[in-house]
């Protein structure tokens, strides 16, 4: 009995011990050091394997090897630029020039070609700065594609300001402009691409005017114009020469001529930024009368009106830009209008000779009247600090006509396309435009937004 009791006691004790110990010993934890350098891929730590990987990578990148020296060279140059602070020195150099009134530029223009330009503020350069007087000169040179010559222009201007309480000024501009080839397809709305020829204008122009700016937004001008023009054959290769191709046509002004005229204009500008408007608009009216001073029998009136408005669509990163432009020249007393002063359509820049019709060649259509509507949807695609870029979708619709009665919707020429404005501190430094229309598509670049 005692044995049995002892046995039972032992059993109970063992059971209790088992109950306590069993859970602990039933699952023995396999401990490990989480940070042990027992590598998952030990092979990767063998020098031979590392070298083999390098060789394999070299072979897989064999196609890249020919361009590597270029990449290396540019990389070294970039390194050198930063190491020697060339960037800062360059900015300093241009700031110094600017402070002295010297403004070098790079110009990409359809009519003037691609090349350098320079503007000099003589009053700053020669240190006779005066708030009532400023004096400038400007010059530039450029090469037009497929043209063997060099186009260049130079000129000067002065401006006399009255005291600030009288917001009036007097300005005179004189310049010489020689272009080696400008397109000419004949006059009229149905000219043919087959009549593509070029002329070389050589122009001397004087414009002296009185201006008044009663508010920041309104500006009026009235002035006198003298123009001397020589016309020669263009130097563009593989296209016709104006004086040969249009030998039998009666093109007014084909031999050039001298003109005087009176011009007056008024502009109302409510844009929030001149180079990169997000809202507001600009309206401009211009009227002029011109008369020859030689035996060319030029006598005509000129009218120009343009209206542009910029709408932010919910955000200033979406802008709808609308522009309407109308020009009409009217001969007086059976006088002629020289072809080089007629309204022109075709090209990628507004306000400079030939108006916007971006899928067509520069100067594509020339006639006495011009009507044009441009629509652009601009939207921001990149912005990082001072740099940015807008993409845009565009459509231009325009027509040249002899008389208003000759305007017909069926004759409208159109362009559609898109592009990109690359900007620095909201100033466009490069514009790339692709546009298509009835005469094919065109890709162009310039250093100025279209409008």
């Amino acid at each position, binding site marked *: 009995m005692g044995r049995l009791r002892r046995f039972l006691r032992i059993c109970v004790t063992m059971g209790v011990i088992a109950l306590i110990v069993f859970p602990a010993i039933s699952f023995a*934890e396999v401990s490990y050091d989480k940070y042990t350098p027992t590598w*998952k891929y030990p092979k990767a730590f063998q020098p031979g394997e590392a070298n083999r990987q390098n060789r394999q990578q070299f072979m897989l990148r064999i196609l890249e090897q020919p361009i590597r020296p270029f990449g290396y060279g540019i990389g070294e140059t970039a*390194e050198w630029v*930063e190491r020697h*602070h060339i960037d*800062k020195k360059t900015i*300093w150099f241009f700031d110094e020039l600017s402070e002295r009134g010297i403004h070098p530029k790079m110009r990409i223009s359809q009519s003037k070609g691609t090349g350098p330009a320079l503007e000099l503020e003589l009053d700053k350069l020669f240190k006779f700065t005066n708030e009532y007087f400023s004096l400038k000169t400007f010059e530039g040179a450029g090469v037009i594609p497929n043209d063997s010559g060099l186009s260049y222009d130079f000129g000067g201007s002065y401006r006399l300001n009255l005291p600030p309480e009288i917001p009036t000024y007097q300005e005179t501009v004189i310049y010489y402009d020689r272009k080696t080839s400008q397109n000419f397809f004949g006059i009229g709305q149905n000219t043919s691409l087959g009549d593509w020829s070029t002329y070389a204008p050589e122009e001397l122009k004087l414009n002296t005017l009185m201006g008044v700016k009663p508010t920041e937004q309104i500006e009026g001008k009235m002035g006198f114009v003298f123009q001397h023009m020589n016309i020669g054959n263009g130097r563009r290769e593989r296209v016709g020469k104006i004086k040969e191709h249009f030998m039998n046509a009666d093109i007014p002004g084909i031999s050039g001529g001298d003109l005087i005229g009176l011009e007056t204009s008024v502009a109302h500008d409510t844009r929030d930024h001149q180079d990169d408007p997000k809202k507001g608009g600009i309206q401009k009216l211009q009227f002029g009368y011109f008369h020859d001073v030689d035996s060319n029998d030029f006598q005509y009136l000129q009218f120009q009106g343009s209206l542009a408005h910029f709408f932010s669509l919910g955000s200033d990163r979406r802008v709808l830009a609308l522009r309407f432009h109308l020009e009409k020249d009217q001969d007086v007393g059976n006088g002629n209008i020289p072809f080089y002063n007629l309204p022109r359509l075709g090209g990628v820049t507004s306000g400079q000779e030939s108006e916007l019709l971006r899928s067509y060649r520069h100067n594509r259509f020339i006639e006495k009247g011009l009507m044009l509507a441009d629509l652009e949807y601009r*939207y921001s695609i*990149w912005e*990082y600090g001072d740099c940015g870029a807008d993409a845009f979708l565009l459509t231009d619709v325009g027509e040249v006509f002899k008389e208003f009665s000759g305007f017909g919707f069926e004759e409208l020429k159109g362009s559609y396309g898109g592009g990109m404005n690359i900007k620095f501190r909201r100033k466009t430094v490069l514009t790339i435009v692709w546009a298509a229309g009835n005469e094919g598509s065109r890709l162009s670049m310039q250093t100025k937004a279209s409008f």
Partner: protein
Amino acid sequence: MKRLINLEKKERVRLWQRAVTMSLIFTFSAWGLVPVNAVTVQELDQTIKGQEISFYREFFEKVLYKPVSQFLRLDWIIDKATMRKHSALDVNIYDEVPDSGFFTNRHGKKRLSKEELQRGANQGSGPKPEGPWAVLKGKASGVTPGLVIQDLAGDRYLLKFDPQENPEMTTSSEIISQKFLHAIGYHVAEYYLVQFLPDILKVNPQTTYYNKDGFKKPLTKEALTDLLSDVPKYKGGKVRASASKMLPKPNKGNSDLEGRNKKDPDDLIPHENRRSLRALRVFGSWLNHYDLREGNTLDVIAEENGKAYIKHYLIDFGSTLGSSAYRSKVPAATHENVVDWFETGKAMGEFKIVQKPWEKRWDKNDRLIADNSIGYFDNLYFNPGRWKTQLPHEVFERLTVSDAFWAVKIMIAFSNEDIQAMVDTAEYSKPETAKLLTDILIARRDLIAKDWFDRMTPLDDIQLSIGQKVTGEVQFTDLAVKAGFVKAEETSYRYRLTSGSCHAKKGIMYQEFKSPSFSFQMPDPGKKNCSVLEIQVKRVGQSKWSCPPAKILLSSPSGEAKNIISDIDHGL
């Protein structure tokens, strides 16, 4: 006799075998103790050629050259075509990163005390503010004004200042980020916050600096006054600066973030395949360190246990948090690379029907910066997975789920109090600034962790216990539950054991369970099979199980009759 000779021969062979085995064992056991490529500092200094990589060079290479040249790289084309991802190679079988010249496990391995966190990498107390400090030169590179000084103890420091419009911003960014990156495990220099009167700076006629126009000029008293004129002044005309102690020489310049230094005997893994570097993208997204690039690294020759090795430092934290060193970060920063071809192309095709996230954020902030002392830093429209550095780097693009898991695991080891303690080291003059920054960093830590945890199976501390007979038990910690992002009762788990051919997984049923442990039938350790435990997690409200699953590879070491964990993998 012949038999005896034979026996002796066998014995001799056995002896040889034992000797070879012993020598191998000795060699491998000594691997951890005695460096394989034991070289001296001098040897390493002579072998390794230093390099300095400027921002412009990196900009050209990463923004212009690589986007073009990668189309000529067959490895890149194959990777893109097959959507292949690369596992990090500097990891051990438990999916951790052992200590190396790139990284030392600190707060993630063992919690640092508040004092240790606040001390960071600092060994001393910095330059004494009473001076005098000899100005050795003006800082040559970078965009912020800087001075190299030497204090009375002979230590050299680089002083950096705040921009006038953003008092305390750049200096605080440097101080705080250095503390965080050190606690995380990166090698960083000593950084001290100093406030001093400008007249303790002593210049000598030989001292030069580069002026804002890039010309080398003598640093005269007048020039120094001019240099400090744009720096905010505090009580009593004091100037505030961050003083980073110059790292010891010899240093070998900047480190590459791609490829490896073939002259460095320890540098065998291409840097783009190092988890410790890839994960900088996650840590960078937390600290908003968008200037992570080669130019902000420094290789220093160090010596430990008689072995010289390259210690890879991170330097320059002036562009962290809301700062971009000389001004607040621009609105697009960290959402896009400085030139982001993909985002720009995408924006072009979207016609601005929708605004970009950074644009919405900027507009929502009324295009204003809330606190000039912090700069532009908040969590509005913050998408951790799409956070970007200033320049694109392959190493950050290679970040895998496993890499991110590792980084997030370290991040959530920082408690709210830890974060507050480190922010306090910036000594903001306004307590509300410190509070705001602390709140942003706490919220950002949680946003990053939640975002990455949603893309993986966030199980850690996986332990295998072997029971009697053939039963095994796995215990783990669900980090999302531990961090308080989800409740334990709202979580379900499931596992399956695939054994035999790794490709015949179809039809193997999952077993569901609720608690973070489960028992399973151990595979026969005698067979040379591929036995993988796959564990997945599902939260209430989720329709799918987590993917990729956490995988535990079981195997038995030769000669042992039990399975152990031989690999943990959180997926690519």
